[in-house]
């Protein structure tokens, strides 16, 4: 299996992590209360750390002048290959927590599988991530129950969030040629195999939270091929501003 394919895969996982982490970090100082503000930013930090590990590995395979920072700060929208669900704006608290829950439920299962990847570095990164993901999932699952089974207002907002997010979840469980090839070699995770467990777990939590599981009559995809929503560009203009204004700037 070519190293180039593993590099591309590491970049994808780094893109997922950096975009997810950045969206969470936008809650810094905007959380509903102090403890929640700390929690959101702590989780954000875990994802930024994950992005650093995946990007560093990609840079190591590349062997050129690229560093972890080059991937985060010096690429434009079409070169980002994150799943679309991560780049959607934070929305209200219910939207951010619903996204976090749906992705935590997926993320833990994903990292548990990646831990048995035949690629040693991917496996090592996953082994670290699994431990953190357990905390992430426990917290976001609690919030689903609190919001869904809370007030009429919180229930309605959470239902709307889940409805608005649902069509973006199809892409998570699809493999393109690159990932299929790596999955066949035991390097990448075959996400198609994670779908039914995910659906069962999510349906159980949504049920307990008195939230209806959406029909699933629409879906949107394209992130892995660099086809993004209009939101990613705005996010990158914020994320990349400093390095674009002062290239190579260090603290």
């Amino acid at each position, binding site marked *: 299996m070519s190293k180039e394919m593993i590099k591309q895969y590491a970049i994808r996982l780094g893109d997922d992590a950096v975009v997810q*982490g950045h969206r969470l970090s936008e809650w810094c100082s905007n959380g509903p209360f102090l*403890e*929640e503000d*700390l*929690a959101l930013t*702590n*989780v*954000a*930090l*875990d*994802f*930024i*750390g*994950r992005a*650093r*590990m995946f990007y560093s590995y990609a840079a190591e395979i590349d062997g050129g002048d690229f560093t972890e920072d080059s991937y985060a700060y010096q690429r434009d929208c079409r070169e980002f290959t994150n799943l679309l669900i991560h780049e959607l704006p934070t929305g209200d608290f219910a939207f951010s927590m619903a996204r976090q829950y749906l992705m935590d439920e997926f993320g833990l299962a994903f990292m548990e599988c990646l831990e048995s990847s035949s690629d*040693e*570095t991917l*496996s*090592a*990164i996953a*082994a*670290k*991530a*699994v*431990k*953190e993901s*357990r*905390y992430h999932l*426990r*917290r976001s699952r609690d919030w689903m129950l609190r919001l869904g089974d809370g007030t009429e207002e919180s229930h309605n907002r959470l239902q709307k969030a889940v409805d608005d997010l649902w069509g973006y979840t199809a892409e998570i469980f699809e493999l393109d040629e690159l990932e299929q090839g790596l999955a066949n070699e035991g390097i990448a995770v075959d996400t198609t195999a994670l779908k039914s467990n995910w659906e069962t777990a999510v349906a159980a939590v949504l049920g307990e939270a008195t939230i209806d599981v959406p029909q699933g009559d629409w879906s949107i995809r394209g992130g892995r091929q660099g086809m993004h929503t209009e939101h990613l560009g705005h996010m990158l203009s914020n994320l990349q501003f400093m390095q674009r204004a002062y290239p190579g700037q260090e603290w």
Partner: protein
Amino acid sequence: MNTGVRSTDRIALLPVEEHQRRQRRADSTCPQLWDALDSVKDPEIPVISIWELGVLQDVELREGAVIVTITPTYSGCPAMGVMAEDVVIALREAGYSNTEVVTRLAPAWSTSWIMDEAQEALREYGIAPPGRSCAGEHAEICCPQCGSSNVHSVSEFGSTACKALYKCDDCSEPFDRFKPI
């Protein structure tokens, strides 16, 4: 937790990775370098060293260069960068100017590697120690101020990535707990 047995008399139940790490230090041909690094503390918790924390994994002397291997605690922990810088400074002060700090991810760091003495130091510092349990497992948590186990969780995430926020329902003091991971 008073079991009537001094911690020094207890037979330590160590994870195998932790046993190997202690063995590397015991068998080292450059013990003076490990000793020099005992002065490097966790910048967020200045009562425990990177050795006691389980972050310092290996120290080797190769052709005049010191290779220090560390393992990160949490993926995004900002203190890791400071620890790496402090390693270089501590070795320079000990007379070694050529140091390379290598980060190793596997095996993944665990709070069960934190040495008993350091767990006690954490408690004295006001942080409830993680104990030996694994992530997600239920473990009794005691207030580091009054020792009561009548406490409740305020938030799963605290002032740093590695801590959760608790409050004691007996003495009313809020406190940090080092999360088992």
